[in-house]
């Protein structure tokens, strides 16, 4: 019974961490892309004003 509790806790912890990790990875990729987009837009704005 006691070991069952350990495996139950482990299962829920792994699922929680896995889902949080996946969401974090998407958010991180989204941030990088948005930064790259705004950099490109700023650069093209600078070029057009030149």
């Amino acid at each position, binding site marked *: 019974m006691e070991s069952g509790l350990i495996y139950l806790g482990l299962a829920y912890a792994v699922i929680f961490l896995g889902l949080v990790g996946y969401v974090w990875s*998407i958010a991180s990729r989204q941030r990088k892309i948005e930064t790259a987009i705004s950099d490109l837009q700023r650069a093209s704005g600078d070029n057009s004003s030149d």
Partner: protein
Amino acid sequence: MKKEASISAIRNLSVLVGATMLLGLAGIFLWVPTEDFQGVVQRIFYVHVPSAWISYLAYTVVLIGSIAYLRTGSQRWDLLAHSSAEVGVVFTSITLVSGMLWARPVWGAYWVWDPRLTLTLVLFLIYVGYLVVRTVSESSRSGRIAAVIGIAGYAVVPLVHFSVEWWRGHHPARTVVNPSEGPQLPPEMLATMLYMLGVFTLLFVLLLLVRIRLGRSQDALERLKAGA
């Protein structure tokens, strides 16, 4: 305006998923009775079965998106299939890991080469392969190859589902929906499992929307780079 509406929908859905998930966890740990034979570890069931079913749903979306992409060539369908494959792999990972942690105290081993387990691993590897094809090359040819994998790979889904009836193994037969004998679970367990299936469905929709948004941003960046 459209972008703001999409962010707002994602935010609202996140709150809904968070609230319903907390309620579901309260049900799992405070309301559902402990199963007599397996004890507390049986509570893994309430995330294991919904994640397996959501994997089927995700791969069905991949199938639909892949067929539509091959027929129309529209990048929207390709993005839908690609995003759903990624989310499907996450849910299949949850199914495999939760199953292994459930099997250890009940069967005495993390893994046995049972037909259901083996076919689920094959399904997982097929869609990991799909994602590898997408990662290696972003050309339209890789999109078409991935679409063919997405369609052909779906043949394993019914094999996984019916494997417990077609071949003998360690994995129990279908207990939630058994057409010949009806539900095999006490009402509280069945209600909680179906509730968690609803929560996982909302979670799937949320992750799919977030992943599609990322794909659209990636496309926007590629267009900007091409125009620069």
